[in-house]
């Protein structure tokens, strides 16, 4: 894909990113930040790709290290966000109904 096409995708994604979180109550700031944090753990895909292309043992070792780090970000991020949100479960719905 050409650089210009990538740039177009980037610009459109900026606007989507701005739009989706424009109205959030302070109650949800922490879980939202944590969820966004988990999403950038998708760098794991990049770490997997460069590890797969490694030609020397040294490259592979560095790539695998990046894979471990990225996994911690991705998996840990989603798990800790879920744990936070578990505590809101039902309660917020109850509050909304009354």
């Amino acid at each position, binding site marked *: 894909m050409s650089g210009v096409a990538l740039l177009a995708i980037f610009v459109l994604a900026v606007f989507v990113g701005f739009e989706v979180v424009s109205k959030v109550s302070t109650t949800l700031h922490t879980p939202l930040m944590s969820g966004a944090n988990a999403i*950038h753990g998708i760098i794991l895909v990049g770490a997997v790709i460069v590890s797969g292309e490694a030609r020397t043992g040294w490259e592979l070792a560095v790539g695998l290290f*990046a894979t471990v780090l990225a996994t911690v970000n*991705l998996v840990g991020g989603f798990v800790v966000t879920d744990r936070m949100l578990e505590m809101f479960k039902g309660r917020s719905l109850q509050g909304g109904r009354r």
Partner: protein
Amino acid sequence: MNVLSTNAVEVGYLVAAVCFILALKGLSSPRTARRGNLVGAAGAAIALLVTFFAEGSHFEHIPLILLAIVVGTAIAVPAARQVRMTAMPQLVALFNGVGGGAAAIVALMELNRLSGAISAGADKDWGNQAAIAFTVLVGSVSFAGSVVTFLKLQEIMTTRPVVLPGAAPLLIVGMAASVVLGLGVFGTGSLALGLVLLVVGLLLGVMMVLPVGGADVPIVISLLNAFTGLTVAAGGFVLHNTLLLVAGTLVGASGTILTRLMAAAMGRSVMGVMFGALRGGSTAGSTAVSDRPVKSVSPEDVAILLGYARKVIVVPGYGLAVAQAQHTIRELAELLEARGIEVLYAIHPVAGRMPGHMNVLLAEANVPYEALKEMDEVNPEFKTADVVLVVGANDVVNPAARTDPKAPIYGMPILEVSEAQQVIFLKRSMRPGFAGIENELLYDPATSLLFGDAKESLTKVVGAVKSL
């Protein structure tokens, strides 16, 4: 494994990107937040699977890569499951840091490949080299900065702003050096320059976060989160991977908005948070404990004040969470309600260590959602409250935020507890709050203090209320 064509992979990535957008959208509303998070996780799983089955991927290392993923999961899941909710902000900071670090490493490996190709006679790839320079620099800043925020929140190092001699010129030199090195990587595609850029980025990350005061650290975590998002987006440019580009950009953009929302909730500007201490403006206040007289009372006195009130407002703070006293405060509230007393909880937007942190902690203790009042809702109620019980909170009720322009928290909206008839502070000691400034309210004639661990004090008060 070469099963999926390039188009199929791109479609898989598109599905994942849509999942991420829906995840962020879902996380913005209490009803859909948990589902949103799961949608995001599903998107990540799809993306990973698609990557493994992509055509043209010569993955002879797949078993080792899977092992690395298992190792990462084995580290992350117990950490995320077992961390106490009070320590959760610093865990999020660490997760953010390792993500930034991973992105920087990925970019360096691409630089390694590229510089090999260039010395073998290939053309330079300007766009790639620029994206690599950006990823290495911002990724390393995010990694080192996140580690420092972790150390601050874990109170391994001081939570007060650290301003080293010559910090401001050093920071400027560091920034200039990183720009020059970044241009060098862009111009030459040299791996050696890339590695120097990594080191400078790490130092820059440390220098940027050291002068930030403890109370402002959550804003910095959010900012570094946005940085990591942009790093991952640049990584998408480097690898020509649309999913990394979209996901990283989403986080970068939403993270920027979220950082500004958080700063606004605390009455701070992002620039003020990052550079205020370097200008020497926002470090006022002292850790010295004043010896002015305060009114210290017994648990029995507190019980009498509470038991014969008509309306009590509880202001929970980080001290309550640290003492794990959420359940005891709920027990006390139920006792008072049984006596026909109205009990409300006043939740400051940044009570705890992060916006929304206290809501999570109290929800964990089954405090009814309807009793939790946000600041704007509860501030008019203080006038008619007989007693305000401040448990382990300090900065969020400190009148200095309105009266003292030199205070680091000046301008932050506060809970106006001084409007109430009586204020009772449950505190461990006279030590100032997280922001490191004294609270005049403690010396007010209408204020009583009950010293001790929040949980022990509350247990005694509960006992005393029962025997009224």
